C-alpha cells in the first residue's frame, strides 16, 4: 500500500515569450529555489530529484538531466528525468510521488522547464512526428489539433459551436490577469477571437497558446514531514496516467480513451463517484481553446456534447459553480515540458489556500490534467486538503 504524500511547497518562474536573463539550468533553479523556500526547508533536506522537460530537440541541448540536477544544488542526489512531451511535467510529479509513496524517500523535489526561445519550434515540432507516417506532411501541432477540434465540433453540432472555443479563450485570458506569473493577460471578446487570423481551421490565432520560456517545481513529502512543513498540505488523493496508440488516426481524438481512463483511475483511487460535485476546481491542459471542451467531457465533468454549455452558461468561469483554469491555463503560458506540472501546482495551491489573487473560496479537492504526444498520453492528479 502506498504511503500518504503531499505537495508542501511550489515554485514558478514568470512565463515569457523569451527569458533573456537566464540560461536553462538558471531558469530551472529559479523555480526550484522558490519551491524549497515555499516549503520552508533547507535544500539539503531534499533526498532525490525528478526532472521533467520536453524533447531535447526543443532547446538543442542533450542530456539536460546531466547538469540541471547539480544546478539545483542537488549534486549527489539521485536524478531521474521524465520526457513524455506535454505530460513531462505532470509525469515528473507523479514519479516524485512514487519515490515518496514507495517509502524509499521522505522529501523529493520535482522540477520541470522548457525554454522554447532557444530553439526553432516550427522546425523542431516537425521532427516530433512519426518518421514514417507523419513527418512527410506534418505541419505542426495546430493542424493536428485542428483535425481534433473539427471532428469534435462536427460530432456535437449544433450543440457545440465554434464560438464556444472563443468563450474559453476569453475566460482563460481574463483569469490570467489575476496570475502574476502568466504570460498572456488579456481582456478580449468572443468577436476578437472569432475575427483573429485563421491558423488551422477551426483554430484561429487567439485560440492558440503562446510559446513560452518557464519552469515550475514542487516539493513532495511523506505524511509526518508534510504536516510539519505545511499548515495545509495538498495530499495526493488520486492519480491516473494512461497512453494509447501513437497514431492519431487510430484514436478517437474527440473523446480520447486515455483521458477517460486516466480520470476513471484517479476517481477510483480518490473514492470520487460524482466528480463535478465532489471536486471544487479543475486545471486542464488546453493548448488550444477547443481542447478545454473536449477534456471537460473526457474527464467526466459533463456529458459528451455538453462542453459548450459548460462555458456558455458560466459554470466554468471564476465565479461559476465549477471553475476551470483559474490560473489562465495553457492558453496563457505554455513552457511545454513544465505545463503539466503548472496545472498540478495551481490545483495544489487552490487546496493549500495559496493561490493569491486567483484563489477560490473553500477548495477541498482539485483536479489537474495534462496531455502529451499526439494526444495519446493523459494524466490526471487529484489533490485533497484532508488526508
Amino acid at each position, binding site marked *: 500500500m502506498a504511503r500518504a504524500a503531499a505537495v508542501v511547497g511550489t515554485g514558478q518562474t514568470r512565463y515569457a515569450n523569451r527569458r533573456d536573463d537566464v540560461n536553462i539550468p538558471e531558469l530551472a533553479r529559479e523555480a526550484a529555489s522558490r519551491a524549497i523556500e515555499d516549503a520552508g526547508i533547507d535544500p539539503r533536506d531534499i533526498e532525490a530529484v525528478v526532472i521533467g522537460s520536453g524533447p531535447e530537440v526543443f532547446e538543442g541541448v542533450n542530456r539536460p538531466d546531466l547538469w540541471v540536477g547539480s544546478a539545483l544544488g542537488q549534486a549527489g542526489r539521485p536524478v531521474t528525468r521524465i520526457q513524455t512531451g506535454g505530460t513531462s511535467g505532470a509525469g515528473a510529479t507523479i514519479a516524485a510521488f512514487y519515490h515518496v509513496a514507495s517509502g524509499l524517500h521522505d522529501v523529493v523535489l520535482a522540477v520541470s522547464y522548457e525554454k522554447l526561445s532557444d530553439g526553432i519550434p516550427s522546425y523542431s515540432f516537425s521532427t516530433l512526428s512519426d518518421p514514417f507516417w507523419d513527418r512527410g506532411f506534418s505541419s505542426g501541432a495546430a493542424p493536428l489539433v485542428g*483535425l481534433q477540434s*473539427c471532428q469534435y465540433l462536427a460530432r456535437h453540432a449544433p450543440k457545440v459551436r465554434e464560438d464556444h472555443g472563443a468563450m474559453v479563450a476569453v475566460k482563460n485570458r481574463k483569469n490570467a490577469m489575476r496570475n502574476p506569473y502568466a504570460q498572456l493577460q488579456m481582456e478580449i471578446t468572443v468577436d476578437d477571437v472569432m475575427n483573429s487570423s485563421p491558423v*488551422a481551421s477551426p483554430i484561429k490565432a487567439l485560440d492558440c497558446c503562446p510559446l513560452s520560456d518557464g519552469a515550475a517545481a514542487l516539493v513532495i513529502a511523506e505524511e509526518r514531514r508534510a504536516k510539519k512543513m505545511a499548515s495545509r498540505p495538498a495530499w495526493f488523493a488520486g492519480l491516473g496516467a494512461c497512453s494509447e496508440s501513437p497514431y492519431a488516426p*487510430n484514436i478517437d481524438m474527440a473523446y480520447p480513451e486515455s483521458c477517460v481512463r486516466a480520470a476513471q483511475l484517479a476517481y477510483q483511487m480518490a473514492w470520487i463517484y460524482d466528480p463535478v460535485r465532489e471536486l471544487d476546481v479543475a486545471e486542464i491542459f488546453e493548448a488550444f481553446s477547443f481542447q478545454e471542451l473536449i477534456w471537460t467531457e473526457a474527464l467526466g465533468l459533463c456529458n459528451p456534447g455538453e462542453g459548450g454549455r459548460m462555458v456558455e452558461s458560466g459554470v466554468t468561469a471564476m465565479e461559476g459553480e465549477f471553475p476551470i483554469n483559474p490560473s489562465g491555463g495553457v492558453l496563457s503560458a505554455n513552457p511545454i515540458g513544465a505545463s503539466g506540472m503548472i496545472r498540478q501546482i495551481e490545483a495544489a495551491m487552490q487546496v493549500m489556500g495559496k493561490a493569491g489573487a486567483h484563489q477560490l473560496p473553500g477548495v477541498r479537492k482539485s483536479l489537474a490534467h495534462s496531455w502529451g504526444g499526439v494526444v495519446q498520453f493523459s494524466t490526471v492528479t487529484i489533490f485533497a486538503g484532508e488526508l
Partner: protein
Amino acid sequence: MGLELINNLMDVFTAEDPMAFAHPDGDPWADFREGMRIEWKMDFTYKHVLGKYSKFFIELTNHKFLATECPGCGKVWAIPRPLCADCLTITKWKELPGTGTLESFSISQFVPSFMKVEVPYVLALVKMDGADTLFTHQLRNYGDSTDVVKMGMPVKVAYATEPVDHPMLLMHFEPA
C-alpha cells in the same frame, strides 16, 4: 579586438528583471544582468529503417494502397500494423480500393517555411473504405476554393507523378 572574435555571437544586451514586481528593494541579480546570445547550427543526417512497414511504401510506387488484416480478430488496419494492436496477432497484407470519406479536416493558411507545399494546406482525416481505422494525409486538387471541402465528402488516394522527398509523399488524397 574584442567581441568580434566570437564568430557565432548574435548579440550582447542588458537583461531586465522579469520579477521586478516582486523586488521592491531592488534586483537581487543586479550584478548578473549582462547577457549574450550565440547561435549554434547543427546539420546532420539520420538514417531510418522503415522496418516491417516498408512494403506499404514499396507498393505505393505500384499505385497500390495496402492495409493489414488481423487473422485473429479481423480488424483491418490502415495505417497498416504488422502486429495487431488490439490482440497482438501478426497481421496479413491486404490491398484496399484507396477510397474513403472525410471524417475531419483542418485548413492551414500558413505552414513552416521548410515545407514545399501549396497554401492553403488541407490536412484530412479519412475513414478508408474496407478499413476499421482512420488515415491522415494532405488533401490536394480540391479546386479553386477550400469551400468545397466538407465533412463526409468522398475522397480517394492519388499517387505522386513527380519525385518526392519522403516515401509517404508518394500518395495524397484528392476529391473522388
